[in-house]
Every structure is written in structure tokens, then in C-alpha cells.
């Protein structure tokens, strides 16, 4: 590991002060389950590491009067699972359970989970985030790479397991610092803050200077904000190799606003298939106005993958993504999914 300087701020503004020093490259440390491994391999080599675990406001769980759930970015996943606050957010609960390692759950935080770097073996092997401008994956072993959104240099899949559920449920992230917005008194230079719809938080990097989120180096995610789950049937389904802590091959989260037996509105988001979580409008459109049964869910799965563009070795993931969508919809509606 390259050595770095270390600081553990105790307030949000202290954290921004440490992150805002443009003379040093910085990384934000929370649980460390991803960052420390990347630093050991010298894939990530910051000058300064800012540990946010000691900031009390980032470790809170709060249900607001309007029904919103505010989850501090540094809340660990096991704390979330053990709390009563996830009731109704089945898609999130199932995604966290899927992580399948109590060590990762106890150590890892929800902010870190959504900001984790890709598992792409070209990236982790030191060939750059895009793997030589996408050539490594295009010409090499791309069995776990993207089947959507892979026309640019980014061929990796976004690794977050919780993000698809958060997007399906319409969550936002509270971002502070940088150009996040003006301060409360409207003055520049204050601790700006902004609520970003989480679907807009992720981006597909076009070159090596970009990352997988819109977060600037001097910005920090402080909270994940979930709207009330009232009236929203939701679920996550992951297609996995086996039972270990490996990442799934394909996943989907479904959120259905029901009007009696029929779907009034739906949002279906696939995971592990594209450089960002992948919202499938076609599947959602197909569900509207219909009641859920196996045939409808199957058709939605088909619609979700109709425009997939698999690489040379990952066409098998198209079928897995289809099944994930189908089963996430069935699970959300309370039907048996088949399989396990």
C-alpha cells in the first residue's frame, strides 16, 4: 500500500474541509471492505484518506414525519438489517441479505455499498477503470461484463447490489460540498447540499478521469433518502453462482404501485448488467394496467432484455437477466418465483 495521510473528522464540514484540499488526492473511507483492498493492490493510491465513520450525523436512522426514511451513509448493513426501519422495503432487505457475509455486513456501510468500485477484473488487475479504453474487455474474457450500455469504453458492470432496489423505490442521495448547491444563506463557499435522485447519481464513465458516480472529489454522500414504501410492492431477485459471498451474475429489483389487483405504475431496475444500474422502461410499461401472473412477468422479462447487446462471451447473461426481472416481479407481487 502506498502510504497516505489520515484524518477522522467528526463533523460534515470538517470532512469537506479535508476533501476540499485540491493539492492532494483523497479517498473516503468508511467500512474499508472495498477501499483497503484496492489500496493494497495499488489500484487506488490516494494522498489522503478521510475516515467518515466518526461523524455522528452519518450514522443516524431517521423516519421523518412525511414517511421518508433517512439513512446515514455510514450506517452499517447489519445495523440496517437489525433495525425496524426497513419494514416495507423488502427489495432493500433482500439485497443486503444477498451480500451473504456477516463480516461484510457488519463492516460495510450503505454509502460504501453504493459507491463501491467495479469488480471488473481488468480494473482490479491494474489496467484502468475502462480496461485500456474498453479494449481489454472487448477482446478479452468478458463473461461477467455488461450486456447493456456497453457501446462506449466502459464494459464493466456496476457492482452495487443495493442500488437497483434504491432506484426502483425512488430514493435520493444527499450530497454535500463542492458545487452541490449554495449554502443555506445563499452564499458561495458555504457547505452546499443537494438531494440527487439516485438514478442520476450513477454515470457511465467515458474516460479514465471520470468515475461511476457524479460525486466530485470534494463532495460527500451523507444520507440515502427513501420515500415511504406505503402501497409499493417490491422485491429484489439475484441470480447467483452459489451461496457464497460472490457477486450475482444478474439481478433485478421491482417496485410496483398496485391499484387493487392491477399495477398502476412500476419501476424495474436490473443490476450487474451495465456500467450503471439499468432501469428498464420497457418492462415497466408492459406491466402497467395488468395484474401480475407468470405470463405477464415472463413477458416483462422478455421486454427488459429485448435490446441487450452482449459481448463475445456473455450472451448467457441475457437469459439470466430476463429470469431475474421475471422473478423480481413475481416476488414483489407475492407469487412463488420458482427456483430458490
Amino acid at each position: 500500500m502506498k502510504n497516505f495521510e489520515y484524518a477522522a473528522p467528526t463533523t460534515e464540514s470538517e470532512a469537506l474541509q479535508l476533501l476540499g484540499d485540491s493539492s492532494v488526492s483523497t479517498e473516503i473511507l468508511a467500512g474499508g471492505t472495498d477501499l483497503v483492498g484496492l489500496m493494497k493492490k495499488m489500484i487506488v493510491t490516494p494522498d489522503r484518506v478521510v475516515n467518515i465513520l466518526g461523524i455522528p450525523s452519518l450514522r443516524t436512522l431517521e423516519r421523518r414525519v412525511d414517511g421518508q426514511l433517512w439513512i446515514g451513509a455510514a450506517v452499517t448493513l447489519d445495523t440496517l438489517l437489525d433495525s425496524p426501519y426497513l419494514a416495507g422495503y423488502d427489495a432493500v432487505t433482500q439485497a443486503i441479505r444477498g451480500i451473504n457475509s456477516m463480516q461484510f455486513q457488519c463492516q460495510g456501510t450503505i454509502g460504501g455499498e453504493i459507491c463501491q468500485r467495479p469488480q471488473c477484473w481488468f480494473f482490479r488487475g491494474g489496467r484502468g477503470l475502462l480496461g485500456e479504453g474498453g479494449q481489454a474487455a472487448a477482446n478479452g474474457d468478458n463473461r461477467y461484463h455488461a450486456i447493456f450500455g456497453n457501446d462506449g469504453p466502459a464494459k464493466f458492470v456496476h457492482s452495487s447490489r443495493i442500488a437497483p432496489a434504491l432506484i426502483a423505490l425512488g430514493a435520493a442521495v444527499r450530497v454535500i460540498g463542492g458545487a452541490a448547491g449554495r449554502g443555506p444563506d445563499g452564499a458561495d463557499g458555504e457547505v452546499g447540499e443537494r438531494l440527487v435522485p439516485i438514478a442520476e447519481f450513477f454515470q457511465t464513465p467515458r474516460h479514465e478521469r471520470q468515475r461511476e458516480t457524479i460525486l466530485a472529489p470534494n463532495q460527500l454522500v451523507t444520507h440515502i433518502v427513501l420515500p415511504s414504501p406505503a402501497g409499493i410492492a417490491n422485491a429484489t431477485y439475484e441470480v447467483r453462482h452459489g451461496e457464497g459471498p460472490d457477486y450475482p451474475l444478474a439481478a433485478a429489483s421491482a417496485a410496483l404501485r398496485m391499484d387493487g389487483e392491477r399495477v398502476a405504475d412500476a419501476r424495474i431496475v436490473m443490476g450487474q448488467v451495465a456500467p450503471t444500474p439499468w432501469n428498464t422502461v420497457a418492462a415497466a410499461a408492459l406491466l402497467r394496467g395488468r395484474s401480475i401472473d407468470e405470463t405477464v412477468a415472463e413477458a416483462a422479462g422478455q421486454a427488459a432484455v429485448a435490446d441487450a447487446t452482449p459481448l463475445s462471451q456473455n450472451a448467457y447473461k441475457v437469459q439470466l437477466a430476463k429470469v431475474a426481472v421475471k422473478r423480481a416481479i413475481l416476488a414483489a407481487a407475492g407469487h412463488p418465483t420458482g427456483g430458490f
Partner: protein
Amino acid sequence: MTESTIKGPGDPGFSRRDFLRGSGAVAAATALQTHAAAANQEGQAAGPAIVRGETTITLQVNGESKKVTVEPRTTLLEVLRTQLDLTGAKPISHDGSSGGSTVMIDGKPMSASTLLAVALVGKKIQTVESLGGPKPDAVVKAFVEHDALQCGFCTPGFVMAVRAFLDKHPQATEAEIRGGLNGNICRCGTYANIIQAAIAVVKGGK
């Protein structure tokens, strides 16, 4: 921890650990002292303190206060193994994916290999060594009775994982135990006996 008592034939008084302590460890300790003299602890006039270079911190390990000298990049696993002679936690995966370096921090199972030591001041750190001694923990006894190890390299991580899981779920079923231990990997494939050991602990009520 107890010293390794495995000795080769015709090699009565000498353990592998004695050898290691006699050679590399001394050189490393000397190097640490040298750098410590040059440690750079600039407290900034305004804003939070920034730790640069080596610093001496106190960690609470197995109920004792231990002074150690670390850099920001030093992991807990490195401190345990090279400074405190607690070599139970193993460097297997480096990224925590094996569970081989599982320790408990404030009672929760975590991977020492992905924790920075400097971030753990004030936390209660518990290693597998705390479960040994003359009166070993029920999990340790159950591992022995159920032959729950082959090469033994993953064993300390599994022992800690079983202990942590059963502390939280003392009435766990076999299926729950299997789920709870998913974060640990045994390449010998001794899972069946590990699960039996854990079930025995549940039945024994400890």
C-alpha cells in the same frame, strides 16, 4: 496465544515461531524505531488533526491495552501478527473475501485485513487467541471434538465466525448456521464438520 508446539523429529526445543522471532522480526522492529524518531505529527491550527507517517496508538486487544506504532496504512492484521504476536488471524485473501482474518470489533465479526489500525482506537478488539487458553471456549472445544479442520489455515477465522454468529443467534438452526458462515471459505472443504461443531455448541447451550 499459545506457542506452536509442533516440532520436527530431533528438533526438541525449537519452534518455527522462535525462528521467525529471532530473525526478521528483530530487523523489522529496529526499522520501526528508526522511523518513529522521524514521525511527523503536525496538528493543524484549524480543522481536524491529520496523521502523517508513524504514530503510536493504544489498542484494546483481548481486554488489554497495547501500545503499538503504526502508519496510517497499517492494517489491524499486520499489527496483530507482527507487533503483538497474535498470529491466529490469517492473511488469506487480503480483501476480506475469505473470512480468514475474522476478528471481533466491539463484538461484531470483521476482517482484520481490511481494517486500518489507526481507525480502531477505543474499540474492543477480540482475536481468536481470547477463546483459547487453559479453559478454551465451547466453540474451540467443539472444533476439536468434531475434527472440524484439515490444514487448519481457515480455522481461526471460522472459530471467530461461529462464535460471533452464535453470540447473536444462540438457538440457530443448521440452515441458519450455514447461511451465517457464508463469509468464510475452507479450501479443504471441511464444512460438514464445522457445521456439526457449531450445532454441538448450540445443543450444549454455550
